[in-house]
């Protein structure tokens, strides 16, 4: 039956070529499309996590919902000591975040001023990497301010200029100082670049009476896939008044956006596959329709319905396999190539800047498991496409089929 199916494939060329091309194109397109979709989501996630937000962050319960000086984490050293014992954690650092007013002689702006550990921050975030002017902070940079490009633009500040700060210290007293702008960064996220500024913690803690305190502790993990298990390990080690949140909660809007984007992506793909499915089925049906008499003869001389079913399934199996075997390595190679050499989509970072996207490049996601289920889906669709032609041809009585014109 297999060799008979093979002969039919060569004999009925137009149907075979159409099925082959459609299967080839849909396999190739599907693999690349899904790799691109997953890649863009991974890229968004990595970018967003890399810029500033950690994969996991520890807060005192109430800080995120209510805020205020009562909700700072105390005994940071003890917590950091525990974190250093937990597997799966790559880096961590604490940040002391406050809000105040930055003023020059003529302009003022509300700003988020955060005390950071410059050395640890180099591993944790892209703050140093996004430096565009001046220099990044160091342990000894004292009253140096490292500010977003859009923030300094608002208050007309230049590197080397002085700027006054007024805020509230951790004991609710006024805190005021004169900072010098030492460096400017641009992450690409307008919201962040227009409000964030940083000071070295060693200096800032004294100003804010914030020794051994932190707004939160941010953590990077070895493998993002393990983020939930690492979160549980951390949670076990800490008191119940601290909450441990992963990026899925911290960047809920981005997760929702990615989910919506995936849904729309799969809807688009589904429509594409519905079209492909029906085109393959229609061509298969036309082919079978033109062979009704032939099938009638075969049934008359002893071919069973099961044989007919097997014959048509073999035909689609051979055609699908041929197309998939050729398309899959090509699709996989494209996905692999562009996972190493990302595609650059001009303006993407501008479009998605609210989610912390700082790069226009989208590396494709090369994932064997994803490619496997892509291929399995195409196979399934092709097999489904012959169900109706099979039932159509098997509905004929053999003698009626031989009279079919």
């Amino acid at each position, binding site marked *: 039956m297999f060799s*008979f199916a093979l*002969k*039919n494939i*060569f*004999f009925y060329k137009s149907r075979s070529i159409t099925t082959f091309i459609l299967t080839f194109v849909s396999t190739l397109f599907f693999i690349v499309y899904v790799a691109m979709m997953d890649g863009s989501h991974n890229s968004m996630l990595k970018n967003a996590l890399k810029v500033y937000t950690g994969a996991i962050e520890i807060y005192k319960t109430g800080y995120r919902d209510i805020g205020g000086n009562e909700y700072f984490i105390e005994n940071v050293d003890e917590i950091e000591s525990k974190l250093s014992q937990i597997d799966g954690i790559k880096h961590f650092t604490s940040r002391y975040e406050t809000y105040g007013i930055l003023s020059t002689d003529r302009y003022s702006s509300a700003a988020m001023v955060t005390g950071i550990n410059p050395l640890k921050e180099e591993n944790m975030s892209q703050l140093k990497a996004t430096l565009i002017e001046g220099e990044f902070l160091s342990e000894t940079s004292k009253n140096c301010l490292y500010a977003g490009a859009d923030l300094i633009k608002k208050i007309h500040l230049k590197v080397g200029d002085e700027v006054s700060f007024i805020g509230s210290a951790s004991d609710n007293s006024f805190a005021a100082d004169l900072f010098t702008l030492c460096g400017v960064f641009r992450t690409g996220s307008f919201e962040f670049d227009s409000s964030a500024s940083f000071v070295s913690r060693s200096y800032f803690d004294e100003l804010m009476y914030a020794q051994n305190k932190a707004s939160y502790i941010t953590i990077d993990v070895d493998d993002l896939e393990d983020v939930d298990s690492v979160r549980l390990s951390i949670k076990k080690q800490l008191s119940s008044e601290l909450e441990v949140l992963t990026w899925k909660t911290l960047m809920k809007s981005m997760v929702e956006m990615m989910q919506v984007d995936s849904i729309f992506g799969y809807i688009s793909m589904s429509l594409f596959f519905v079209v492909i499915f029906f085109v393959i089925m229609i061509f298969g049906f036309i082919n079978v329709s033109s062979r009704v*008499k*032939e099938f009638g*003869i*075969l*049934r*008359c*001389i*002893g*071919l*069973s*319905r*099961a*044989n007919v079913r097997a014959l048509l399934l073999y035909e689609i199996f051979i055609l699908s396999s041929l197309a998939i075997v050729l398309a899959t390595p090509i699709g996989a190679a494209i996905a692999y190539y562009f996972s190493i050499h990302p595609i650059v989509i001009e303006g993407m970072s501008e479009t998605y800047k609210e989610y912390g996207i700082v790069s226009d490049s989208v590396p494709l996601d090369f994932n064997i498991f994803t490619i496997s289920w892509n291929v399995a889906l195409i196979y399934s669709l092709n097999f489904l496409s012959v169900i109706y032609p099979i039932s159509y041809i098997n509905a004929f*009585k*053999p*003698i009626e089929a*031989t009279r079919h014109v």
Partner: protein
Amino acid sequence: MIKIENVNKYFYKGEDRELHALKNINLSIEKGEYSIEKGEYSLLTGPSGCGKTTLLNVIGALDSFDSGKIYFEDRELGALSEDEKTTIRLNEIGFVFQAYNLVPVLNVEENIGFIMRLRGFPDSEIRERVKEVAAILEIDTKLRSLPSTLSGGQQQRVAVARAVAAKPKIILADEPTANLDSKNSKALMDMMRSLNVTENISIVFASHDKDVLESVDRVIKLNDGEIIES
């Protein structure tokens, strides 16, 4: 081998009138009926539309009937499922059609060996048998040709070879000479007679061809779906 008891098939059956395709067909000699014995060489004949092909199709488990019984050896065809009928057609009946009805994608050798292959004969036996039958039917030089490259006479011989190759108990041939000229008709009938004798295969024709009429042992005449002479 085949017994037909009081078989009726209707084109139309209403309260006011009936239109028969086959009417009270009884074929068994001993009981006032008629049976087709193994090795027989018979002809169903009659004018166009008399029911020759319909009767042949009913005997060959290709078509249904409305009443009566047909026994293929000890099996009653009316009681069999479609799959069981397919098995009988595959293993015990050979068909030769008016329009040759060869499989266009298979060459002559593959067409002749097709039924044997479906029945699971070993390749070596199929090759040997195909050569043997092809030699008898004088198509052994065309084994690699596709049906579309053969003449009508050659195609009909391939169809006969296909029917004969798997050694069925009976061959049902519907108007096998209808598309052949007289020379090819005669040649085909000579070959079929030869197979009837050498292979001991019963052959029943449905035809109104004079060449066929002259060559058979028994003639069964039909008119308006009824046997009028057997």
